[in-house]
C-alpha cells in the first residue's frame, strides 16, 4: 500500500511538473493542483505506514495512526484550494483582456531587448531600424 501511494505521488509530481512547463494557463493551474495532491499524499505517507483510526480507547495506543499529518493535509488542502481559486479568477480576468489563455511575456524585458538590438545595429554602422524603435514605442503604450 505504501509503495502504491508513493508511486502515485511520484506520478502526480511528474505530470504536474510537465503541465507546469506548458504555455497555457489552464494547464498550469491543473499542473499546480496535481503537484499539490502529490505533496498531500507525501504528507499522508509521512505518518509512517498503517495504523488504527485515532479514537481514544478504540485500540491500543501504540497501534494508533499518527493523526498530525492528516491535520496538516486538511490545512494544506484549504490553502491550495483557495490559492487555485484565486489563480482561476485571475486567469478569467486575463482572458477578458486578451481573449487568450497564454502566459504573457514581460513587456519591459522585450522593450529592453529591442533597444539593445537597435543600439547594436548603430554600432555596426547601419541606421537604427525604424520598425524596432516604433515597436518599442508600441510596447510602452
Amino acid at each position, binding site marked *: 500500500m505504501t509503495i502504491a501511494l508513493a508511486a502515485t505521488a511520484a506520478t502526480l509530481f511528474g505530470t504536474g511538473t510537465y503541465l507546469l512547463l506548458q504555455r497555457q*494557463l489552464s494547464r498550469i493551474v491543473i499542473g499546480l493542483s496535481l503537484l499539490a495532491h502529490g505533496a498531500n499524499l507525501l504528507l499522508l505517507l*509521512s505518518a*509512517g505506514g498503517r495504523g488504527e483510526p485515532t479514537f481514544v480507547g478504540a485500540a491500543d495506543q501504540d497501534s494508533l495512526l499518527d493523526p498530525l*499529518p492528516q491535520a496538516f493535509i486538511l490545512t494544506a488542502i484549504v490553502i491550495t484550494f483557495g490559492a487555485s481559486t484565486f489563480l482561476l479568477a*485571475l486567469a478569467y*480576468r486575463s482572458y477578458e483582456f486578451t481573449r487568450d489563455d497564454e*502566459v504573457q511575456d514581460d513587456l519591459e524585458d522585450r*522593450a529592453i531587448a529591442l533597444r539593445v538590438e537597435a543600439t547594436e545595429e548603430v554600432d555596426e554602422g547601419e541606421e537604427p531600424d525604424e520598425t524596432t524603435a516604433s515597436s518599442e514605442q508600441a510596447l510602452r503604450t
Partner: protein
Amino acid sequence: MKVLLAAPITVPMAAAGLAVIVGRWRSLQRVISLTTLVVVAVTAIVILVRVDSEGTSATQAGGWPAPIGITLVADRFAAMMLVISALMLAAVLVYAIGQSGVDRDHVGFHPVYLLLAAGISAAFLTGDLFNLFVSFEVMLTASYVLLTLGGRRDQVRTGMTYVVISLIASVLFLTAVAFVYASTGTMNLADLASKLDTVPSAIRQALVLLLLVVFGIKAAIFPLFFWLPDSYPTAPTAVTAVFAGLLTKVGVYAIIRTQTLLVEPDERPQELLLIIASATMVIGVLGAIAQNDIKRILSFHIISQIGYMVMGLALFTVAGLAGAILYIVHHIVVKTTLFLTGGLVEHRTGTGHLDRLGGIVRTTPILAVLFLLPALSLAGVPPFSGFVAKLALVDAGFADGNYAVIGVSLLVSLLTLFSMTKIWAGAFWGRPHTSADEQRPVPILMIVPTAALTVLSLAIAIGAGPLLDLSTRAAADLEVRSDYVEAVFGG
C-alpha cells in the same frame, strides 16, 4: 510577556475582521488599521526591550506543551525584525492613505493589508515549521490580493506569474514538510534542532537544501529571482514598497533561521551559499543597470542586496551574522524609502520612465533630497546606514579570510552607485519635460512618511554602534542554539 508574543499576530487579524465590518466607512477603516499598526509597533518594541534584557522568550498556543502545541518564540533577531517591519507597515499605510486611487480606496485594501501584517509577524514569531508554512501562506495570499487589487491588465499579467511561482514554492515547502516529518516525527523547530541529528547525514543535507530552495524562491536569490522584477513594479507604490522592504526579507529570515538552527556547524553549505551570494549580488546589479524605469531599477537592486544578506549568513560567524542582521534592518528602511520616493516621482510627473523624466531638482527639490539620501545609503557611501552595514559585513569577511566575496561585494557597491547616478541623472537633472505647474501636487501625507523613513535611516547610521552591539547579541543567540531550545522547552 507571554501574552504579548501573540499580540502582533492576533491584533491585526482581529482588526482585519473589524475593518471588513466597517467597510462602508472608509475613514473609520483607516483609523482602525493605523491604530492597529501603531499598537503592533509599540508591542514589538516592548517585546524587543524585554527579550534583549531577559533573553529568548517562548509561549505555547493553547497551553499544549512543546513539541505538541504550536510554539511562538521571540529571540533578539525575531524581535528586531518585528519592530522594523511594524514601523515600515505603519509608515507605508500613512502613505497609502495620502495617495488616493482606485486600489487604495478599495474596500478590501485595509483588511488585506492588516492580514499581510499578521502573516509577516507570524512568520517571524513562529517556532514550528508547519506554522511557518501557514504564516507564509497568509502573507502570500494577502500579497496576491494587494498586487492585483486594481485589476488592470498589466497587474493581472504579472500577478499570474507571481501567484504561480509562489504556489510552486508552497508546494515544495509542503513536500519539505512531509519529508522532515517522515524522518523526524516533529515540526517544532527547537525539537528538530536536536532530532535532525539522528537522521542520516545525506538525508539531512537533502532536507536542508530543499528548505533553502523553498525560501530561496521567496527571498529571490540567484537563480530563483526572475519573478521579482517582473511582478513588483506593477503594483501601486505603497504595496510595492511593503513587498520590496519586507516580503523578500521574510524569506531571508527563514533561510537564516533554518540554516542556523537546523544545521550542524560542520555541515553548513558554506561554499554553496558564498557562491549564491556573489552571483545574486552581481546579477542583480547588472540587471539594474540595464533597466530604464525607476521602479524596475529598484526591483533589481532588491535582488542584489539580498546577496549581501546571504553573504553575511554564509560566513557563519557571529560577526558575519551580525552584519547580515544589521544589513537587513538598514535595507528594509532604505529600500522602502526609495520605493516611496519613486512613487512620489511617478505621482508628481505621471511616469517612472527615465526617458520621459528630468529636472526634478528644479521643479520639486524635496523629492531630490528624499531620493539622494537613501540612494547614497544604498550604495554604501559614508556616513549613511548602508556604509555602516557594509563595513560590518566586509569586516566579518576579512576576519574569516573570504577575500573573493569581499571583492565582489565592493565591486557591486560601485555598480550600485553607478545605477543610482543613472536614476539621478535621468530623473533629477536635466531639463524638466513638464513645468512645475503642469505636474500634480504631492499630498503632504505622502511626503511625511517618506521623510520619516529617511530620518530613520539616518538614525540607524548615527546609532550604528548600539545597533551593531544588539545585532551581535542577536547573532550570538543564533549561533548558540541552546538558548532557543531551552526557551521553548523550559517555558
